[in-house]
Each structure stands twice: as structure tokens, then as C-alpha cells.
């Protein structure tokens, strides 16, 4: 059974407050960059799933020199790579004090003219 190729709701790249990924029904591979087939095995049998928004920080960079006047207007921001608990990696914004290995969970912030995922340390 082929799952819907589009999620029910738009993900953050389309203005929705959710992170979406794809899982291959044939081989189980996960992918974050949406496409019509599995990058690992080529199958077109993909499920489109919403992520919980939790994960672990893989890498961090605090950006002081922004690329555009629009980005600069937001002041310095922190870019992170997060390994989502579902088994894929994504780039996002994060709190300035994040460190590699931190457990994090997502909210969504306005940035320039869209909504972007913003990770903060999970409070236990």
C-alpha cells in the first residue's frame, strides 16, 4: 500500500509547526529531504510521518556573521544538527547554550519570512 506522498499538514518548510520525514516501507530507511523514492533502495513505497521533535545535538555553530540583511536583523543565531529520535538528521536553530550530546526538544520560531524549528535542552 502506497502511503500519501504529502503529509496531511504542511511541515515547517511550508509554514506548519511540525517536522516531517519519510520511511521506506520496503527497506526501512529514513530520509529527511523529501523525494518520490527511497534514497537507499529506490522503492516508491514511502510513509510520510511527523516526528516527535525530540533528539540529540550532533553539531553546533553560533552564527555571528549572517548572510543577508534580513537574517542579520534577527541578531546572532545558533545553527544545530540534531539527530532526531526517529533516526534521521536535520539542520535547525537552537538555544545559544546548546552543546553536543544535549537531549533537546523542538518549538518553532519566526525567522525572516518563515517558521523554523528551534531546539532547546529537554528539562527532565
Amino acid at each position: 500500500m502506497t502511503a500519501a506522498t504529502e503529509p496531511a499538514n504542511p511541515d515547517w518548510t511550508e509554514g506548519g509547526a511540525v517536522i516531517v520525514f519519510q520511511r521506506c516501507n520496503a527497506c526501512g530507511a529514513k530520509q529527511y529531504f523529501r523525494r518520490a523514492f527511497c534514497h537507499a533502495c529506490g522503492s516508491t513505497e514511502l510513509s510520510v510521518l511527523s516526528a516527535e521533535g525530540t533528539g540529540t545535538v550532533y553539531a553546533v555553530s553560533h552564527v555571528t556573521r549572517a548572510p543577508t540583511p534580513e537574517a542579520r536583523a534577527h541578531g546572532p543565531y545558533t545553527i544545530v544538527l540534531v539527530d532526531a529520535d526517529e533516526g534521521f538528521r536535520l539542520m535547525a536553530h537552537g538555544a545559544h547554550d546548546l552543546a553536543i550530546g544535549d537531549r533537546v526538544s523542538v518549538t518553532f520560531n519566526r525567522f525572516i519570512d518563515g517558521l523554523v524549528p528551534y531546539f532547546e535542552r529537554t528539562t527532565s
Partner: protein
Amino acid sequence: MSFITGVGLTAFGKHEGSSTLDLMSVAAEQAIADAGLKRDEIDGLVCGYATTMPHIMLATVFAEHFGIRPSYCHAVQVGGATGMAMTMLAHCIVEGGVARNVLVVGGENRLTGQSRDASVQALAQVGHPVYEVPLGPTIPAYYGLVASRYMHEYGVTEEDLAEFAVLMRRHAAEHPGAQFHERITVADVMASKPVASPLKLLDCCPVSDGGAAFVISREPTGAVGVKVRGCAQAHTHQHISAAPALSEFGAEIAIARAKANSGLAIADVRYAAVYDSFTITLAMLLEDLGLAARGEAAARVRAGYFDRNGVMPLNTHGGLMSYGHCGVGGAMAHMVETQLQMTGRAGNRQVKDASIALLHGDGGVLSSHVSMFLERVR
């Protein structure tokens, strides 16, 4: 077989009023003369791209402008790895009998031909247009992410990274064409303006105007031949979000293939020319290539290992970080300097023995890799 028979290189920095085609032409003219050839003996042309002059047929535009009618001609685009990829392509073209003398040329007025914001934005587009670029990353941010992880896994510090900037500046001081000549210290690097942590201004290469060219020929044209002994590529990803683990990056794959097809080992290498867009790039690549053990490249810099008179002279012209970075021509300067060293023409920068050289280029965010061994033959 193929040989690097001639090289040309402009000074890097500001060339106010010079266009991309002007800078390419100056370097090309030098390289052809250096090879002892005439324009009509150039039957192949390979060129790169220019962010200030986007064109779907840049090689043909250049051929017409420069006044040659090659029988083989097109452009190549692999980001920072373009110079090395063009060299490998020219080698394959010559070995395949398609052309006898291939002109390889790159150049751009990247500094004076556009605003700094335009340059930063153009380069940030190597990121994913939907999943990365809307977050406001820059090339330093992509490499800053890699640096944070590399430092975490291998215990490298910011002071360690700073050593590479200091080394490149020390080498550039000896080259009149370099963009920067003022000596710097580790403290200067540490105190420089933050850009994208852990990278600071002096961890980053500058934006430059400049041009570089060389000729790859079927036979040597001078007394000393610089032969392409072996080369290989590896392409593991485009975007940093989709990159493999650090231990599976492409440099290690490319160098393993180049060692296998050249029959050479790292122990044979006497001179190294390694892509150095950022201090982290150089540190990682040296360790990936086996020119230093994991996490130990900085210690080798401190011990003078990569100095002009050291065991493994490295980027003696000052590299991207201090000779400068004009785009495609930036990493081509590494090849020009290597050829000068191998033919004993590096003047006050001449190393004792450059009989076998290892060159390595990287494009994207450590996405595309080209490794090459050159050997001096008489």
C-alpha cells in the same frame, strides 16, 4: 601519461577593473608561455565557473575571448574541488588521446565584482534550498558545524586550529603575490572577530580577485617533467545534513583510490598541497589523508613538520587562507606552486626535495574530493 607543462598565476587580492575573463586571460597567457607552447598548439580547454559571471557556456565564451578554437572544450563545476577535478579531467583527456595540450583555466573578480553579501549568499547556496538555506547558514556555518563535531570527537581545540592560519600566513609572507603578508599569532586568530563558532575571521580564507591556469600535455616540454602519477575522486553527499559520519568522509576514500592507482604511499610524498578554505578543513584533510594521525595535525604544525624546511612542506605559497581564494582559481594556486616547487623554480620558497607531491581538493561541505599524486621525471 600526462604532464603539467606550464603554469600561470596572478597575484590575489584586489584587481579593480579586471573582469573574470581578464583574469583568466592573464593566467592562461602565462601558462602557455611557461609551457613553451603557442596558442594554436592548445587543442583542449577546460575551465571552471565564476559567481560574478554565471554562464551556461563559460569555456566557449573564454575560448572566443582568448582567441583559440579547441577541439575539446567545456566547463566543470565541483565547487572548491573544481581545480583538481579539471586537472584530473585534462589528464584523462590527454591519456585518452582526445587532445595533446589541454589548457586548464580559472579566475574571477570575486572580491571587486560583487558585494561581500552577494559573495556570502552565492556560496551559502551549496546548502539545501528547502531544508537548510532558510535557516540562514553560511559556508563558515556549515564548516563550523563540522568543526564542532570534529573537535568533540578528537579533542582538537580552537588554539590547535589557529596554528594552521598562522602557518599559512608565515608561508604567504614569502610570496609577493599573496593577499596577506602581515605575520599573525595564535593569539591574533583567537582574538579575531567571531564568524560562525568555533570559526573566527582568521580561521577563514578571504574573498579575492585572481586567476590561475596550467597546461596538461602528452609530452613534457621542458627539461624537468611533472607527471600525473595517479588520481581519484570520491563524492559522498552534497549537504551537511546528509553527510556520513566523520570517519566516512570522502577524503579517505579518494586518497585510498589514488594510492592504489599510483602505487604510491604517503611515505613517498615529499610535498603536500591541501585545500584550506578554513583551518578546520586543513586540519581534517591532513588527518584524513594520513599526513598526520587523528587529532595530531596541530602538534605537527607546532613542531615545524609542515614548514618550508620541514619534513612535509605544505602550501608554501600561503594557501587559500593567506595567498587568497578567488573561487576556482584559488585551489589552482596550490597546483601552480607545486609545479614550481617540483621544477625547482620556487625561488626563495624553494623546498629541498619536491620529487613526489600529493594534492587534494575539496568542494561543497567536504562533499566532493579529488586526490592526486605528481612525480618529477627527467
